[in-house]
């Protein structure tokens, strides 16, 4: 740790063991306090660490504060983004430049006390790839509690992965987890789900929430809608990313089939029974269903084409370990 102090924070010298990534939005707690707390709590468990503050275009005042902070704490590195990119991208950028093998992501408004971190790091040491905090018992009551629980419950139902607190950003993981999973938009919430689906070992650790800290602005009317859309993204990405036609094709073919059946019925009435069908709403419905069916199915085919042309960049699997016949040495083959 002493060496760490005298070291310049940017990539020179030995790499720290852990990197704490704090994406900085418009709202944050006392950062100096967080840094002091981190030093007190983390040094015994991980040894050397760095703090990467990703300043997500927060404005001049914050910029000043953060600059002062990095002067005060040598372990603090600051990445300033020139335009607002959102928490997920900020996290991904932070992870890219992280040098530690253990990544710790924090939110800057401290939903979970920093002093709980050793518990999470401990589980990682037990062989987990990803450990995340589950605030329990929850502080929120009423509508926002319902929305939060509902969000988690729907995500659980969609993915069959038993997660309980996707909205808590306090997570501890091995670096490769973050490197392996692309995060953008609002997808950082779903990191545990993507990681679990890629086969990483994960667990939740119940931590008491900080008293009086509620989710900030999380559940206004607009965020309800965007959360719902996030869940739709999740459902789609989780199941159909490599096979868009399995979804679009099914929807399209069903719609097309119903449209064609109605159309055939109308044609029968027109040709055989000689009834007028031009004024029938059913005709409009048949046209609509046929058009929608072909549209959806052809977009699915387009999706397949896109996947095919990029298939080599999208790895389907994660390798746990490999025994190589050619270069095999005892050191390499043990786990």
């Amino acid at each position, binding site marked *: 740790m002493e060496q760490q102090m005298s070291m310049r924070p940017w990539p020179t010298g030995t790499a720290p063991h852990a990197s704490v990534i704090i994406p900085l939005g418009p709202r944050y707690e006392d950062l100096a306090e967080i840094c002091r707390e981190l030093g007190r709590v983390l040094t015994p468990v991980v040894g050397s660490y760095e703090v990467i503050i990703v300043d997500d275009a927060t404005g001049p005042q914050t910029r000043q504060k953060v600059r002062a902070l990095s002067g005060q704490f040598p372990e603090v590195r600051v990445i300033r983004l020139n335009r607002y990119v959102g928490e997920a991208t900020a996290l991904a950028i932070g992870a890219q430049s992280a040098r530690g093998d253990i990544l710790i992501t924090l939110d800057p408004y401290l939903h979970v006390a920093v002093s709980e971190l050793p518990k999470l790091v401990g589980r990682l040491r037990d062989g987990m790839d990803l450990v995340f905090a589950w605030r329990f018992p929850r502080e929120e009551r009423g509508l926002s509690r319902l929305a939060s629980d509902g969000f988690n419950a729907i995500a659980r139902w969609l993915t069959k992965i038993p997660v309980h607190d996707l909205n808590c950003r306090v997570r501890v993981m091995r670096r490769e987890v973050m490197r392996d999973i692309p995060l953008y938009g609002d997808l950082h919430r779903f990191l545990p789900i993507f990681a679990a689906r890629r086969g990483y070992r994960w667990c939740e650790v119940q931590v008491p929430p900080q008293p009086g800290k509620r989710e900030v602005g999380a559940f206004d009317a607009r965020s309800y809608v965007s959360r719902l859309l996030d869940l739709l993204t999740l459902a789609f990405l989780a199941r159909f990313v490599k096979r868009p036609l399995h979804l679009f094709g099914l929807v399209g073919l069903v719609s097309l089939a119903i449209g064609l059946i109605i159309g055939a019925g109308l044609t029968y009435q027109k040709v055989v029974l000689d009834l*007028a069908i031009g004024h029938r709403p059913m005709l409009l419905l048949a046209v609509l269903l046929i*058009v929608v069916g072909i549209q959806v199915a052809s977009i699915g085919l387009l999706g397949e084409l896109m996947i095919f042309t990029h298939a080599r*960049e999208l790895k389907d699997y994660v390798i746990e370990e490999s*025994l190589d016949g050619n270069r095999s040495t005892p050191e390499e083959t043990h786990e």
Partner: protein
Amino acid sequence: MTTRELPGISVVVPVYQEVDSVSKLHQALAEVADRMPGVWEFIFVDDGSRDGTWEALMALHQRDLRVRAIRFKRNFGQTAAMSCGIEQARGKVIVTMDGDLQNDPADIPQMVAKLDEGYDVVCGWRYQRQDKLLSRKIPSMVANRLIGWLTGVTLHDYGCSLKAYRADVIKRTPLYAEFHRFITALVALNGALVAEMKVNHRARKFGRTKYNLWRTWRVSFDMLTVAMLVKCASKPLRLFGGFALVVAAVAAACLVRVWEFYVGPYHHIPQVLPGVIVLGVWLSGHLLVIGLLAELCLATAHTRPDQLVALEVP
């Protein structure tokens, strides 16, 4: 031998819950390899087994340095395992086979010999299939016919895992989702010469078959995708635009008919016609746009379905 040569033949075997089979399979493979010249490697890809398969593979690796083993974090499916094994393979010839002892390693020398005749891919044909008639053979017969018709590569048996490839051909073919059964169609699309060869097929001794029938609908959508990739190749606008033109022609015919009514003595337009016109214009516009987007997609593509393979003459 002091320095290790690069292997000539890589055998890729995806295994999942095959603890009983792997050592027998390795034994059979080793017997074949010992009789053949050249350096071999056996790549076992353990697709997230939980029954001790990995420990068995570790033991094999200790005994035989030709054995390479890769273990997935969880079960990612046969295609993923195969594509990982193919990617890791170092041989000039890559042989893929099932890990359940239904394929016979003794067939490999013949297949490799066939490759030397100038073929790029040699596919096994299980002409005496040892499987249940109703649940395995009949669905696969129907699927084989359909795949042949849609993709234009006629084989008796697409589902047989025992295949031999020239490495440069198979390494260029993206393999993902559940595309292993269409791999022949995809490589043939790249201009590969495909041969078929009768191979032995033995009944399962251990474990249970890992396929089930209800997957059929997914396979049929995959088939549709492969058909599109084959038909589109480098000009998707011809496919989508062709449909668009047909639909537009129908709409135009209806428009002419409406015009006739309009200027004619009746002044009463049958209301079906405007419906068909709306349908036609809407759809043809949509299909045209999709075709253009597909062109855009190919123009920026990393892997094109028809990417011509510049084959190095052996």
